[in-house]
Every structure is written in C-alpha cells, then in structure tokens.
C-alpha cells in the first residue's frame, strides 16, 4: 500500500504540489488526472525516490521514501513521459543495461527480455538500433524497461501516448493483467477514456488533491444521481403523480429527469404505469469522465503553473 502524508514540493519558490494526502491500495489501478503543471510528474518522481519532497512523507509498504530509497526504487518500475532510450543501441542492449542496474542476473534478464519483446511484437526488431523505431515501438520498449525487473509498483506516465489504437488496446489490456497479477499500477494520463476503462480509483490533482474516489462515486458527488424516464402520455398527469411522490425533478418534453430519487426506480415506474403512462426507457443519467474532470478542474479555481 502507498500512503502519502502531507506531501509538498517547492521548486525555486514555485509550489509544485502541496499538502497531498492519499492512500493507494495494493493491487489496484490508481489514475492521477490533472492539467499540465498540476504536479502529476512531481508526485510520481517523489514516490519513485528520484527527488525528495520539501515537506511530508510517503510510505510504500510501510517504507519511508526518505529512508528506504534504494529498496523502494528496486520494487518500482517507471515509464517516464519521454521514452528516454539509447538510440544507437538495439532493444536488447537497452533492456540489458537497465536490467543490470536493477541487479538482475544475466539469465533471468534474457528470459524476461525475450518474453516481453515477443509479447509486444518487438522480437523481430530486437537487433535494430532503437533510433530506427517508430514512436509507438519506442514507447512499448520503454514500458518493457519499466517492467523488466518485475516490480510491485508500476508508475506509468502517459503509457499509450503515441501508440496506435490497436497497440493502445494491447497495452491497456496488459495493464489490466498486471492488476490481476497483484501489481499496483499508478497511472498518469490525459486520456480520460483510458482512465475510465482502467481506474479503480481516481485522484484529480491540481497542485493539491481536488477530488478522490472511484469514478462512479466521483460522478455521484459532482453530478448527483439522476434517473431519466422517457414516456408517452399525458404530461399533466405525470406532473401530478411526481408531485404527489414529492420528487425533485424536471421535465424535458417527454423525458422526466429525477434528481436523487430517494426511492427505487421500480416504484416510480409502477406508479406511472398504473396511472396509464406508457414508459419507453428508464436509465441513470450518465456523465462521461471528461465532463466530470472538466467540472472538477474548472470549479477548483486553483491555478496550476
């Protein structure tokens, strides 16, 4: 588990993050959303012990990021915003170098390299200089580098950026598989569809935590629960019934939108049907994660740099 306590980072009088408190459960996919300059990368750099916080602390499996840097780095894998590969080296040389920095023995490193290069369809190009790779291939190679030492905590900064849709899907499914293997994935992304698909929990960051929770809970918190009933029939009669049921609603032609109904949908439907109203559809009004994100960030009013 990752526990972040009052984390703050200031660079040359510019506050990158302030007072962050979070708990990330082991084995979950945790998505960090936020505008540019919101402190996402800074947070990841602090958690991976690349930089120190100005104030506060974070504990990874109970180990402090201030005291157990080497162990924490050994159990973390990081996909940086830029792939950051040695362009004159081939894929195997790149991966072998990093596996040796993680203290892996040559044999297990070779096995892992082969496994991942095949999984991400790079095996055929293993001896080509990375400089000749496409952006997507580089991104896949950088992802392999983050996983090569079998880390428990995997930090992914924009993992599917510059990947084609097919490869993006492979990567997303792979991230889901990582979760099944018990890995904890911390994902920073601007791709809200991806976040929606993957996230167990979301934190919206804008130098501080603007919102935190599961996607559904956040929607409910921000937009409330709304039920939509589409019908054909007498509008006045429908209005009368809904008023009698003391529901908070509004009508939009032949649609009733009920805020926080408080009673089960089936009871509302049954009452309307008994009164002779013909019900076409009943559904929860859904909001996309994009709507949720924009609402949260715009309402925050906290200026990011």
């Amino acid at each position, binding site marked *: 588990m990752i526990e972040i306590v009052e984390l703050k980072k200031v660079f040359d009088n510019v506050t990158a993050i302030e007072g962050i408190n979070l708990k990330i459960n082991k084995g979950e996919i945790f998505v960090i959303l936020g505008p540019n300059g919101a402190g996402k990368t800074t947070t990841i750099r602090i958690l991976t012990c690349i930089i120190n916080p100005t104030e506060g602390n974070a504990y990874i499996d109970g180990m402090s990021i201030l005291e157990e840097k*080497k162990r924490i*780095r050994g159990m973390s894998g*990081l996909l*940086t915003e830029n792939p*950051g*590969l040695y362009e004159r080296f081939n894929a195997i040389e790149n991966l072998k*170098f990093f596996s040796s920095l993680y203290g892996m023995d040559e044999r297990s490193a070779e096995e892992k390299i082969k496994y991942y290069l095949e999984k991400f369809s790079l095996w055929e190009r293993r001896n080509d200089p990375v400089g000749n790779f496409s952006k997507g291939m580089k991104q896949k190679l950088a992802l392999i580098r983050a996983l090569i030492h079998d880390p428990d905590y995997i930090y992914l900064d924009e993992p599917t950026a510059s990947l084609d849709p097919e490869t993006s899907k492979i990567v997303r499914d792979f991230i889901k598989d990582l979760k099944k293997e018990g890995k904890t994935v911390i994902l920073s992304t601007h791709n809200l569809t991806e976040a929606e698909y993957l996230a167990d929990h979301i934190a919206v960051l804008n130098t501080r935590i603007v919102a935190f929770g599961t996607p559904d809970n956040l929607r409910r918190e921000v937009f409330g629960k709304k039920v939509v009933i589409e019908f054909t029939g007498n509008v006045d009669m429908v209005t009368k019934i809904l008023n009698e049921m003391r529901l908070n609603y509004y009508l939009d032609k032949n649609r009733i939108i009920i805020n926080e109904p408080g009673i089960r949908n089936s009871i509302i439907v049954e009452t309307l049907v008994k009164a002779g109203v013909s019900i076409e559809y009943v559904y929860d009004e859904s909001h996309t994660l994009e709507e949720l994100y924009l609402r949260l960030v715009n309402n925050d009013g906290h200026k990011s740099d």
Partner: protein
Amino acid sequence: MMDIRVIKAIYKKDLKEILSLTTVKYSFIFFPVVFLFIMLIVIYFTYNSLIAQGSIQNAASAAKNLEIFSYISTSYLIFFGIIPLSLASTISSYSIVGEKTQRTIEPILATPVEDSELFIGKMLAPFIPTIITTYIVLGFYTLFVDYLSLRLGGIVFPNYAWYSIVILFIPFSTILMILLTLVFSSRAMDPRSAQQFSSIILIPLLIIFILGIVIYTLTSLLIVIMSIIVILSDIVVYKFALKIFNREIIVSRWK
C-alpha cells in the same frame, strides 16, 4: 556500499555509446597518432643534432650527450599530458550531453543505482580509454627514446620523472579534466556547447604546458609538485561536481 557490477554496467554502456560516435573514434585514432609522429620526429632530430656535433668520440663527451639527450627527452614528457586532456574532454562532454539529449537520465535515476555509482561509472568511461591510449603513445615514445639513448651508451627511461608522469600526473590530470568537463557539460544543452566548454577548460591548462616549454626545466620534483596541485584540485572539483550531480538538479535542469 557501492556495487561494482552497476559501475561496470554504466561504464560499459557509456564507453560503447561514446565509441559509436564517429568524431570520437577519429579523435582517438587521429590525434594520438599525429602527436606520436611529431614527438618521434622531434626526438629523432634532437638525437641527430647531438650526433651531428660529432662529440661522441670519447667517453666523457658521450656521457655528456646522454645527459643532454636524457634531459631533453624527459622534458618532453610533459607534452604527453596534452593527450589525456584533449581526449577526456571530448568523451566526457558527450557522456553527459548524450544522456540529456536522449532523456535517458530519469529512467536511470529511477533504478536502485546510487549517485556515487553513477558518477564513478560516468568518470570511468572517459578515463580508461584515455589512459590506455596515452600509455600506448607514451610507451612508443619510451621505447624510441631508449632505442636512441642506447646508441649514446645508456637508457633514459624509466627515470623518476617518467614514473611521476605515468603514475601521478597523467591519471590525476585526466581525472581533473573529466571532473571539470562533467561540471561544465552538465550545464550545457547540446554537444556543441559542451565541446565549447571543454575548449575553454583546455585553455588555462594549455597555458601551463606552454609555460613548461618556455621554462624547459622538467624535473621529477617539479612533476610531483604539479601532480600534488592537480590532486588537490581533483578533491576540490570532485566535491563540487558531486554537488552538481544532485538528482534534483539533474532531473529539473538536465533537459
């Protein structure tokens, strides 16, 4: 505690990467060969001028000639300091700037590698090939000088000055050059400006060499004194370089 395997991995990676650069490869071949060629010609002409004076007929004058030849060939040793300075500056500037331009430093910093391991690995990459090349060139010079001095009735090298140069001056001045280049190139944004920084560093060092030529009195004592100055400078610059080699500075400024 430092992990030798990690240092070795960084050193090997850096060396491989650096030597894949055509300009570096050529500077490692072209410059030492030309330098050696010039030194051999100079020493050969020195020898010939002594012979031409016709003063090797009697034992006393032969001994005098050997003394003069020994004095001159020993004085020339200082020029061998130019090779490591020049090569080390070329390589170490690429070593840092390469990480910057390819943005590879952050993934490295995310591994369990210690700052000291990374720093020493980065220092060894330019140090080892530079020292090997310098010693090879110096080896040819030594053999040639001894071949000529045998004709004058004795052997010049190794003498105290030679040992001082090989054991003290060359390695420690190479370290100084690498440290200075690491400090300067960590501020540079591209290989060209790093190279320019290196050239600036070379200027004061070249002035010292030129002064050496003018003064022309290289003794083992002088080399030891110079080496002590260099070693002290190494310590000061090392401490400063380690400060520069701070993770936070690297991540936030090495862009």
